């Protein structure tokens, strides 16, 4: 008896499902960042607005990476439905705190897929996920650094204006 399922797809149905959920998560992230860009822009934080526009674009690229991988492996990539995007924030700081929460949840989700692939010995998908693990290092670093600016600069006086200016300069360049 031929192994017809393996012939059609490199990834298992379970991994395919998890990857599709990740497509949705990345799309959701992108939409959240877009909403943050709007809020920052409306409230006079132009550098932060630009920062979130860039983040939104990056998340969109992540979504497409997962999407194309699923298709390349013979799976069925599902275009996700995204709803429930928060449009208003209570404070400048809250925006960044939620951005970090969002990145943490993405990291955890990718770790979960990684664990599942290890269990199935799907090393091919693990190799694909390695890029994302490294990317999450950068994403979490940047989000954490932004919150750190609130601590070191302080929000009093022209603090928020200063913080906004520095958000534009946040970079992660680790050789490790």
């Amino acid at each position, binding site marked *: *008896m*031929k*192994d*017809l*399922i*393996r*012939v059609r797809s490199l990834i298992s*149905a379970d991994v395919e499902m998890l990857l599709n959920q990740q497509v949705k998560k990345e799309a959701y992230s992108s939409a959240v960042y877009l909403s943050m860009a709007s809020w920052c822009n409306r409230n006079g934080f132009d550098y932060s607005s630009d920062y979130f526009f860039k983040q939104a674009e990056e998340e969109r690229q992540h979504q497409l990476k997962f999407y194309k991988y699923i298709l390349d492996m013979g799976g*069925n990539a599902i275009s996700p439905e995204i709803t429930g995007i928060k449009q208003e924030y209570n404070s400048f700081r809250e925006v960044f705190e939620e951005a970090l929460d969002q990145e943490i949840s993405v990291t955890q989700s990718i770790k979960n897929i990684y664990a599942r692939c290890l269990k199935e010995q799907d090393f091919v998908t693990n190799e694909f996920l390695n890029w994302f693990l490294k990317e999450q290092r950068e994403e979490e670093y940047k989000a954490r650094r932004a919150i750190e600016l609130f601590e070191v600069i302080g929000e009093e006086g022209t603090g928020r204006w200063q913080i906004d200016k520095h958000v534009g300069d946040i970079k992660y360049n680790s050789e490790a």
Partner: protein
Amino acid sequence: MVTTLIDPQTNTWADVFATKAGAVYQCDAERCWYVDFAGKVAKFDYRCLLKLKKAVYNVDIEAKLLETTKDPDVEIIFICACDHTYILTLMQIIALKEILEGTFVMLQLNSILQDRIYRVAV
């Protein structure tokens, strides 16, 4: 001299899994499966078999059992882009689920065997 083994039975169906209620066969030549259930034999390709599995697994059997409405106890299993529709009672759903579960375990086992016998260097 290399001799090529030609399987004389390429067009035959291999038993995948069977219960008293029905059975699933695989046809290597057509790259498909035949599901013998509820009085008919239906042909499924890879995509449709996965859709059938999803549709059947998604029926909340427990909720249906607890339902006290007087609605008839039937479920329609309609699979998009497939030729087959099943109209099944709850008992039939349970039986079909059992067959599909067994089928996918056997297909997975086949995959492991193929790995061990033909694919993996040892």
